[in-house]
């Protein structure tokens, strides 16, 4: 059964246009002009139970708008949404009991209170009996390793500590779906890794479906098995991580240290990325030329060292973003 079902969803914002300067302001009072910005255009997708899905796209692609419609913050113009079979438009509160949200750029905690008091507050918001809240807090305190600062006011915590608390606060009511909007923004690599491990464990232990947006390729690569890429308000790609990595671009990077210089100019299916005398870096389009073929061109006897790798995911993704812009 699909946990999230989105069908032909659209959202348009009306933005007032203003010419520059005071004159423009006066003009817009007398005769206001509006521009319609189609933030989300007719998108459809499904998410299955227990999936960790990456919902990515460049800035302004419509990610946040979509997440906000899924969680009941924004009201869609057209289309249908079903999250856990609940329509966020009609039963916002009912849905709120079942989902958790973490917005990396917004805080939902009371900053003058300790994490412990905050968790109690969130327990009350979701009408969870006192004893159960205590049990949950104890469980998460161990899982997320926050014993050290559970009694320190939130405003005195570091960003990494705070984010961990934000995630716990959104998990207190054991949501079935967790929406994470850039949870690792601004965190150092160690804390990032830490958060990722926790998200993974959550998914494994509680079978929580996770809907993640991030600009951090590491998040996506390490957590998600499926990717939906959205650009200019439309879904441009909905595929498994593996397909995206190995088949989407059909390209390999070959780095070789040579005994002698080789001239590969004008060879079909090969792009030279770097040519520094004996060090060569080329991109092989495996649709046009096989790797074996490319190595033959280099002459195996001539190779001192070789490294064949996939194109970094980051490049693949930014290529998709750019391609769609054209």
């Amino acid at each position: 059964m699909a946990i999230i079902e989105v069908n032909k969803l659209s959202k348009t914002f009306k933005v007032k246009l203003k010419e520059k300067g005071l004159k423009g302001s006066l003009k817009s009072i007398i005769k206001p002009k509006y521009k319609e910005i189609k933030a989300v255009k007719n998108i459809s997708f499904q998410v299955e139970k227990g999936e960790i899905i990456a919902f990515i796209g460049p800035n302004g692609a419509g990610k946040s708008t979509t997440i906000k419609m899924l969680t009941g913050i924004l009201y869609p113009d057209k289309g249908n949404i079903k999250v856990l079979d609940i329509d966020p438009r009609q039963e916002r509160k009912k849905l709120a009991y079942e989902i958790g949200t973490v917005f990396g750029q917004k805080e939902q905690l009371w900053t003058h209170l300790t994490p412990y008091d905050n968790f109690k507050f969130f327990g009350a918001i979701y009408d969870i009996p006192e004893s159960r809240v205590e049990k949950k807090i104890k469980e998460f305190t161990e899982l997320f390793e926050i014993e050290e600062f559970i009694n320190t006011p939130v405003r005195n915590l570091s960003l990494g500590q705070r984010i961990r608390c934000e995630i716990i606060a959104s998990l207190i009511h054991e949501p079935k779906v967790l929406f994470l909007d850039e949870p690792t923004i601004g965190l150092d690599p160690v804390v990032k890794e830490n958060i990722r491990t926790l998200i993974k464990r959550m998914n494994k232990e509680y079978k929580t479906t996770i809907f993640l947006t991030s600009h951090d390729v590491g998040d996506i690569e390490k957590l998600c098995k499926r990717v939906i890429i959205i650009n200019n308000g439309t879904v441009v790609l909905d595929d498994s991580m593996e397909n995206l990595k190995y088949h989407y671009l059909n390209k390999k990077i070959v780095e070789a240290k040579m005994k002698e210089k080789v001239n590969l100019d004008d060879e079909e299916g090969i792009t030279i990325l770097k040519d520094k005398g004996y060090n060569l870096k080329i991109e092989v389009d495996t649709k046009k030329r096989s790797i074996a073929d490319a190595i033959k061109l280099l002459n195996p006897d001539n190779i001192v060292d070789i490294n064949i790798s996939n194109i970094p995911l980051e490049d693949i993704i930014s290529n998709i973003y750019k391609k769609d812009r054209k």
Partner: protein
Amino acid sequence: MLMVVKNQIRITILSIKYALMREMLNKTTFITNIVFMILNNASFLIQWIVLFSLKKNIGGYNIKQVILLWGIASLTYGLSHFFFKKAFDLSETINNGKLDVFLVQPKNVLIQAITTDVEPSAIGDMIYGYIMLFIYGISLKNFLLFTLFGICGSLIITSITIIFSSLSFWFQKSDLIVDTVNRLMVNIATYPDGIFKGLTKILLYTIIPVGIVNYIPVKVLTEFNIYLTLISILVTILLVLLSFLIFNKGLKRYSSSNLMIART
């Protein structure tokens, strides 16, 4: 249904309690805020004492009634600004997309949004209100009526503010209207009924309901009148319902934002 209401009340009390705890972090500011508000209000009474030494009756009020009027005005202002401080910033909350946090929680958005902060100086207004009642003459009946009108009045002020603020869902800037209406209410609230005539008087019983918030209580406390009391309660209920209706209608047009910080 009963459970829903009970849980909502529980979370509202908790929210106000936490907000109060935040204000009390700085003890000195907290206490001086309250004391100075009382002194500030008291200073206004001096000009009335001077006026009444010249004339026995101003706009149909004697000095005791003016004291009562000040009492009720302070109490309604105090209650509404203490418990629903954020209602007076609701326009800004809507325009800056700060409702997101409340929309993902399974509680009433409007109640959550307006009870997330308290105004400590408003405690001074509430205390001052009861001091004025004490000077006017306290009895159990006066105390109960005064409190009842205080609650009704504060709910009316808050509802009117919410209604005008909700216009922000349709027009970008409605905070100007909200500020104007609020300032008018505060300014007019401490002047006797009788000095306003004609169109102004009609306004005072409709859009700027100072008449219902302040003048009816003074009348009823001077000479008890059950009908006026009931009208007051009825208007309160209607306005509260209307404020929820308009806010919820507007909420569908809410456009959020990507600004940071939801709770300060």
